[in-house]
């Protein structure tokens, strides 16, 4: 059962994780630090401390950004331990809010009709310009792309297994960011691949895992293992999804195999560019601020790839933040912990503004939403592969 005793014992309390943790940076409080959370998980696991609201609060305040993992010399798998602990908490949680949240991430995200209704609602809100009137918690809706009222561009399931690449179409990616899928497909086809969107696939289950809806996450993983079987490469163009797919070994039988075959689109495209299977633009187009989604940089340790793609698109990548501190999106965090998310979003906004450029790339939808909801209309936020596709097509 995760966290295991060995995982808990592995922490030597060196504290090297602390400066990388956004909640610690904001509060200076050990209680809001990875080291503190590991101690708490351990104390609850041994029964020394009861699993109560304070414990639940400690774990829910955590962004799950996993920046601590990248800094930990003891190689502690904090992300998995957090998910396991949240699952245990969820089992004991009969609150209405808790149940609603787990329902949202466990079921609703797989109901296409519900997502389409939400999209319609958002499209209307955007046209009637009432987004600013939404309650604070839902302000992140401000960060969505302009949604169409009719004629969705989402990717339909297709593919008979003959394609070389399986694309994870995802839940909100497909509804709210179909342009990214278009770019992904366009780029991969240019490199000579055929891209299938295998039917039977579901939401990857990342948000469910992060929320502690373990059963739902396992269910989704199982379905996806089946849907992706037979494909050599599985590509996801949302960093949160690719990170989670790479951990499918923890979530379903046969998951290890999917994990081994998964690539985030950025690392894949960067490789193709390096191997000259994709073109480089000759032009010099200006600067682009590169935002590193936590699940790309910390969870998958992919840092160079988005920058190489930006360069290949003819732009100069500009650094925002040497530490790669979370922008505050963190899945549903920006809804449920919106004050902290807001602080982090404002920090990220200042860093972006300081670069002087108006173009930002981010390889994750949640981050894109968060960034756009904090930056004003002068800024353009898109996926690095979209930027690349626009410049080389």
């Amino acid at each position, binding site marked *: 059962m995760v966290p295991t005793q060995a995982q808990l*014992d*592995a*922490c*030597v*309390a*060196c*504290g*090297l*994780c*602390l*400066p990388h943790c956004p909640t610690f940076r904001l*509060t*200076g*409080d*050990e*209680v809001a630090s990875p*080291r*503190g959370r590991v*101690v*708490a998980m351990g*104390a609850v696991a041994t029964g*020394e*401390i009861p699993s*109560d609201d*304070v*414990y639940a609060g*400690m774990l829910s305040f955590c962004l799950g950004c996993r920046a601590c993992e990248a*800094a*930990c*010399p*003891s*190689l502690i798998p904090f992300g998995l331990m957090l998910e396991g602990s949240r699952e245990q908490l969820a089992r004991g949680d009969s609150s209405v809010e808790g149940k609603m949240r787990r329902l949202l991430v466990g079921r609703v995200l797989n109901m296409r009709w519900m997502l389409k209704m939400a999209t319609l609602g958002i499209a209307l809100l955007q046209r009637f310009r009432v987004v600013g009137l939404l309650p604070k918690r839902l302000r992140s809706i401000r960060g969505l792309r302009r949604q169409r009222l009719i004629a969705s561009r989402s990717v339909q399931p297709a593919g008979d297994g003959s394609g070389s690449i399986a694309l994870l179409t995802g839940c909100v990616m497909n509804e709210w960011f179909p342009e990214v899928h278009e770019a992904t497909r366009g780029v991969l086809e240019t490199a000579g691949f055929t891209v299938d969107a295998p039917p039977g696939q579901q939401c990857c289950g990342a948000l469910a895992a992060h929320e502690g809806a373990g059963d739902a996450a396992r269910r989704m993983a199982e379905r996806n293992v089946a849907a992706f079987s037979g494909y050599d490469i599985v590509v996801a163009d949302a960093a949160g999804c690719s990170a989670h797919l790479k951990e499918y070994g923890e979530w379903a039988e046969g998951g290890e195999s999917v994990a081994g075959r998964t690539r985030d689109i950025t690392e894949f495209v960067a490789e193709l560019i390096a191997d000259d299977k994709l073109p480089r633009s000759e032009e010099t187009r200006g600067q682009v601020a590169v935002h590193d989604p936590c699940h790309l940089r910390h969870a998958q340790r992919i840092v160079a790839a988005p920058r190489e793609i930006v360069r290949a698109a003819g732009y100069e990548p500009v650094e925002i933040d*040497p530490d790669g501190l979370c922008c505050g999106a963190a899945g549903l965090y920006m809804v449920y912990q919106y004050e902290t998310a807001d602080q982090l979003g404002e920090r990220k906004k200042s860093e972006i503004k300081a670069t002087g450029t108006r173009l930002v790339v981010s390889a994750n939808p949640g981050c894109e939403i968060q960034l756009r909801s904090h930056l004003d209309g002068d800024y353009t936020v898109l996926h690095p592969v979209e930027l690349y596709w626009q410049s080389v097509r």
Partner: protein
Amino acid sequence: MSLVADLRAVLGSDRVHSHPLQVRVYNKDAGVTSGEVLAAVLPETTQEVAACMRVAKGHGVPVVPRGTGTGLAGGAVPVEPALLLVMTRLDPPWEVDHLSRCAWVGAGALNLDISRDLAHLGLHFAPDPSSQAACTIGGNVGTNAGGPHCLAEGLTVAHILGLEMVTADGDVVVLGGAAPDPVGLDLRGVVVGSEGTLGIVTRVLVKLTENPPAVRTLLMTFDEIEHAAATVSAVIAAGIIPAALELMDQAMVVAVERFLKADLPVEAAGILIAEVVGLDEAVAAEAAIIERIGREEGATSVRIAADEDERALLWRARKSAFGAVAQAAPNYYLHDTAVPRTALVDVIKKIYEIGDRYGVGMLNVYHAGDGNLHPLVAYDANEPGKAEQVKAAADEMVRVSIEAGGSLTGEHGVGLEKRDLMHLVFDPIDLDAQARLRGAFDPNGLLNPGKVLPRGSRCSEFGMLPEVGE
């Protein structure tokens, strides 16, 4: 009113932690001991610190200051149930005087942040303990922190120009400042390294050092540790004080390589990382001399870092040593002793011999230029009898160091860890004098009691200090 209620009246509820889980999370630092925390508070201003101190004094409760809790000697761990003053939020905007090369920063500012955020001015804060990415300047002041670059630059105390401190009475004093040689007794020197026993430092005026125009970092490999140590001596004898001279043995390099995967030379018995800084010409010449000496002493390879990335990787390797060891076994004991450099080879041999005799595996890293040794023992406390063997080996290592003319601690501090060994280096009169000095600052013994000095350091017949009237 209760202690917690009084503290809440000062700070509000959010910044006063008394729930069992919250205090549990605060009951240890990065060392091996834990203690009992009555409450942990997070003040944001000097006035709040002073108010908390007065509350604690009113209740007769001991106070333990804490930074980010990266200390290894138990300095931030209460010996008796205490109020923990968490200083991380003491971080107001810095007051940087570029021309005078100093800056007032809050005690909660992180060591590495100072150097990073002032890099654009061409300045940095010289003391660079391995924990520098995580430790606070307040903590550095408390322990008189070291690090590899202290060889040429000196310990933290040489880089502290001023201190703002809350006294045991809850008053605020300022010691020193940007002007040289403060008038009267210079108390800065005793407060730095006092491990939270003389007052709670809230702001620090740090001396900033010019970034050198050029740096050369060399990695030398050796078949025998003695050759590496001999190289160190020969370099110093040649009149060069490098910016850093760090020695790592094979066991340590192997552990770090497992973590970093940086192609480190895992076959060498020992590696020496040497760094020289200064003008291009000086640096090239000194690096050449160090290389020649290394080869004369038997270096099997000498490599100069080709660029900033490679240099950063070498330092990352060195500074990950402690954490990387954590993968080797569930428990560890990191030693810290200082010996005269001339005794280095001898003491290193004896330390390996002690390790063999007690059957404890060791990984070693040394600030070789300073004679500062960090044998690191990785073990499993669940193995019956192992913890006792490790402790016995540790005590013997300390004795061997002292016999060689060394002292208890080079940079981590006495804390709780070495408190009861103080009698090995100081006689009762020395300890009494230190106790009286401490009593001058803290007559009631409420500031981090049980640290630095063993119980009974005050010779009882001297009683309370007479007041100096005027």
